């Protein structure tokens, strides 16, 4: 076994996530939609009470 075992000398290939879109965009999209959901619910419930519009 002649492979270099020292982490400093071993050449490593940088690994990218297999699917950046899946790893990064999905949680951001979910977070944004949670925020919009909260705003929509707040508008539906509280806006008429505050005299701001209403259905």
């Amino acid at each position, binding site marked *: 076994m002649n492979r270099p075992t020292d982490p400093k000398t071993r050449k490593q290939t940088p690994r990218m*996530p*297999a*699917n950046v879109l*899946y*790893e990064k965009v*999905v*949680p951001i*999209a*979910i977070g944004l*939609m*949670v925020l*919009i*959901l909260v705003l*929509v*619910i707040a*508008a*539906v*419930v509280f*806006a*008429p009470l505050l005299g*701001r*519009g*209403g*259905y």
Partner: protein
Amino acid sequence: MQIIRFLPFVSTLIVFVFAARVLIRYRQRGGMHSLLWGIGFIMYGLGTFAEAYLAFDYTAFMLHTWYLFGAILTPAWLGQGTIFLLVRRNNIARISLIILTLVTLVAAVKIFSLPTTAKPFDVSVPVSAQYKDVLVRDSLSGALLGLFAAYGTLALVGGALYSAYIFWRKRIMPQRVLGNVLIAAGALSPAMGGVLVANHLGDYLFISELLGAIIMFIGFRLATAQQPVTAPAMQSAST
């Protein structure tokens, strides 16, 4: 002739195709959630059909139908389907369905008993822009709408986002993750359109309903498609 007047017809077609697919799935595989989603999408279609009808002719019956199905009932019944999918214990789903059914009957009687004003209905103007001048609403009808909209939007959108997050965190079923994200986005579209109309911030209800129907349809197809169990990221990590 404005092309926007035909958008509710397109929405109606898409939504009824969507409802048929969901109900066929219910007949093949069962599942109370599928039945309730099917009912919810039929209500969605009745609302958009009434909207389409009111772009060419006016009857008080159609105005009441639009307000009942398009504005009040649809999100709650779609959301009830999600409740049945996600809440499986303690009969919460069944009890909430009984309550929803009873309140729906109350809402139907209430909305169809609302009087209309003598002000003429202009078919060249979207119903969402003039219903407040024609339909005499009271505090109970407004409270019913707020209650149904809040319950349904929270259950449908919140449930879809919760499911998407759970599948994403477990790194399984990526298509179901994306499908649920799209279902949530599609459901938020008409909800935001309704909020804008209610608060006099712009009338995008027609386009928001059409976009919502298309996005939810794609999301549903993705979420229910046959798919690999493991996400691509995990596949590469395990090899």
